[in-house]
């Protein structure tokens, strides 16, 4: 298969970027999208052109590092996949493919397709944890039974990989899906309930400080989320937030 690749090139956060066009050929349909980029980069190096910088690591859809906006969709066509799980068989021979970084005020471009998602780390640092120290003397893991339904729901929320597709997709660049997934996971479990009020207040505050927009319930984030994180989480966070603001001391 042969493709025309339009890719965003930008040298640094402060520099002006633009689309560059390259051709790639002899791409097999079994290749992953990132392997296609590898081929492109090998070709660029031989031509003395700087290779395209992009984030990637596990290449099995779990680390959340890859972050490409392909033909106007976060992680490209198809549901429930990250860019690294996208295969070239999803495209037609001769297609023109346009690749841009995840764009949001709180995700400044570092170079080319690589963005800075440190804002996500700071949201977690604001309260996405249970305040428990390491200790060999904690209660036995089975001391507090947890209803299977709650444990499963907490797990579903906890599967967020922090890639930022939700933000890149949202017209408001909102991080509500990301933040609410962590808030939900911990508020569904007895271990997380104790700090629930403080947690939701602090995490939402940090989210706003970072410059993420608000949620207007378009539901686009849920559609593009590679892990199928549900917008029910946002509803749960809103409820938690409301009750926390009423009862906060």
């Amino acid at each position: 298969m042969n493709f025309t690749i339009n890719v965003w090139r930008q040298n640094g956060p402060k520099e002006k970027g633009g689309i560059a066009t390259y051709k790639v050929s002899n791409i097999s349909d079994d290749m992953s999208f990132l392997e296609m980029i590898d081929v492109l980069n090998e070709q660029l190096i031989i031509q003395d052109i700087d290779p395209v910088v992009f984030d990637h690591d596990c290449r099995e859809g779990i680390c959340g590092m890859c972050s490409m906006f392909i033909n106007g969709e976060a992680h490209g066509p198809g549901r429930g996949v990250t860019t690294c799980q996208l295969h070239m068989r999803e495209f037609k021979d001769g297609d023109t493919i346009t690749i841009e970084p995840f764009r949001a005020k709180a995700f400044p471009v570092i170079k080319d397709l690589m963005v800075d998602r440190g804002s996500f780390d700071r949201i977690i640092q604001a309260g996405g944890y249970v305040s428990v120290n390491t200790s060999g003397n904690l209660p036995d893991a089975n001391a507090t039974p947890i209803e299977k339904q709650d444990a499963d729901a907490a797990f579903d929320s906890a599967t967020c990989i922090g890639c930022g597709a939700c933000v890149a997709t949202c017209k408001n660049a909102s991080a509500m899906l990301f933040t609410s997934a962590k808030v939900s996971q911990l508020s569904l479990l007895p271990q997380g309930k104790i700090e629930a009020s403080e947690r939701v207040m602090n995490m939402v505050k940090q989210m706003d400080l970072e410059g993420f927009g608000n949620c207007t319930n378009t539901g686009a984030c849920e559609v593009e989320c590679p892990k199928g994180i549900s917008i029910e989480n946002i509803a749960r966070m809103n409820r938690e937030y409301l009750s926390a603001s009423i009862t906060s001391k």
Partner: protein
Amino acid sequence: MSKLNANIPEGSLAEKWTKHKSKIPLVSPANKRQIDIIVVGTGLAGSSAAASLAELGYNVKAFCFQDSPRRAHSIAAQGGINAAKNYQNDGDSTFRLFYDTIKGGDYRSREANVHRLAEVSASIIDQCVAQGVPFAREYGGLLDNRSFGGVQVSRTFYAKGQTGQQLLLGAYSALSRQVAKGRVELLSRHEMVELVVVNGKARGIIARNLVTGELERHSAHAVLLCTGGYGNVFYLSTNAMGSNVTAAWKAHRKGAYMANPCFTQIHPTCIPVSGDSQSKLTLMSESLRNDGRIWVPKKAEDALAIREGRLKPTDLSEENRDYYLERRYPAFGNLVPRDVASRAAKERCDAGYGINKTGEAVYLDFSSAIERFGSEAAHVKGIKNPNENQIKKLGERIVESKYGNLFQMYEKITAQNPYKMPMMIYPAVHYTMGGIWVDYNLMTTVPGLFALGEANFSDHGANRLGASALMQGLADGYFVAPYTVGTYLSQDITTGKIPTDSAEFDEAEATARNRMNGFLNSKGNTPVEIFHRDLGKIMWSQCGMARNEEGLKKAIADIRILRDKFYSDVKVLGKIGEMNPELDKAGRVADFLELGELMCMDALAREESCGGHFREEFQSKEGEAVRKDDEFAFVAAWEFAESDPGKSKLHKEELSFENVELNTRSYK
């Protein structure tokens, strides 16, 4: 040959750790505030160690090359984590976990370390649950367990096929809490490129800021390497693209011995290689072997027909299938340890029974599980005389609930539906049991330098059991290092801040800079990736699932030629002082090119077969591994010498087994 002191405490096996802990010197809270610790890597071992040490009051700097600590490759571990909780009342105990691990490792690990691992395993589960890790639960609300290879109990805790993710996010949350408190300084997108040794002690690192390209100096009283394994030396592996040996190799070049580097785990259930430009391999969790049955056609002509697309596996009747693991190992069947399962797959494929285009794949079939679950579910639902379709539907639903995400992953990669067609799998490089040599306190041969998790060699011998890597990473980080690092630091309370303007820091920074300039100035014609791919081919063919003297000698010669070619012909664009991922990759591949040679030397020196190390010269008539305990019951610890991996010196740590009898591992 010098004698290595493993510093194993006195006393009976079960008492060693407790006694050791109660006797070790402590550092007072006020003094902890004066002490700096560097933690390199933020996977399970690194995040848990950084968080725990910060909670104790030390000043911690945590480094990772990814953009966030949450992305370390522990995140990709699927199946589960072992712990001797005996919740299932199936006869599990600390001793049994210890025994299974020693036996599974083919009697090439240290008794005392392994027993300690088994002892702290139960606390890990308590810790994770307290952090809010959502483990799988039963309807009664209690934790669920499943079985893994090489054991006959159910002691594996899991969170669907994403256990590593959930545990890492737990450790990451503990780390984030300390970052918020200002106890940990987080340096993401940083890569360690040199170790700094001052007066014989590890006192800091040179790290490259991967965004600005700047070389930074960081000093500390102790350095912890939690940098994972080096499976990417094979190019194709289940490791992440960025996983590398650089930090460990720099430490090795500065005096840390590498132990048993040839002990590599080839995981039996991975998605087979599909093409030449493939960049990585994807694992299908071992947990699938709980319910999946592995087979190839009994007749070679059927295998050929399948390869050529003339026959479908579902058309082959039961009697024409060879469930070779069940045939060869009736006691453990499909749940034999990984090394045994991998070799058995290779044996069948080499004999011409492989079932994909390349001839390197076997089937992992869920049809009997679907039928069994379906019938059970029909019975529960009170459906009398259910038809085949009903059973299949019900069964598929149960398989989906257990392995849904894995099946989905398989379908995405291969474009085949594993509910209808058996999965195709083949072994792939997954984990390295070898690593930096450490004593009982996890300290390397460089004082003040520690190695935790997969980066060290200590607990898995020649083969790691499934679900034990997560256990070891968290054991080292949460429950071992916080004590043992403190013991070392108790001598450092009056040292004061370590300056970074010393000659040693100058020298280390210059070394790193010269090396990078070397790559940039080589003005060659070949991209880094191509050298890595070539190295991988040599390693996989000569130092992979089966090894022999001739092949290993050839590999050593080939690697040396490739390494020379790399230095004269590598092409890296750009500069040091800017973001330059190709330059980072060049540094990593250069280190793999040295490590590869050492691995082959180690494999050559170990004239026996044990665990993942299978020397073709040493096998029984039935093709089983033949161990030589009288000659090789030792840890091979290699010292770097004369700036040439080929000149490395071998030191032996004799292993003594006082609590288990050395038996031929049998899973029949």
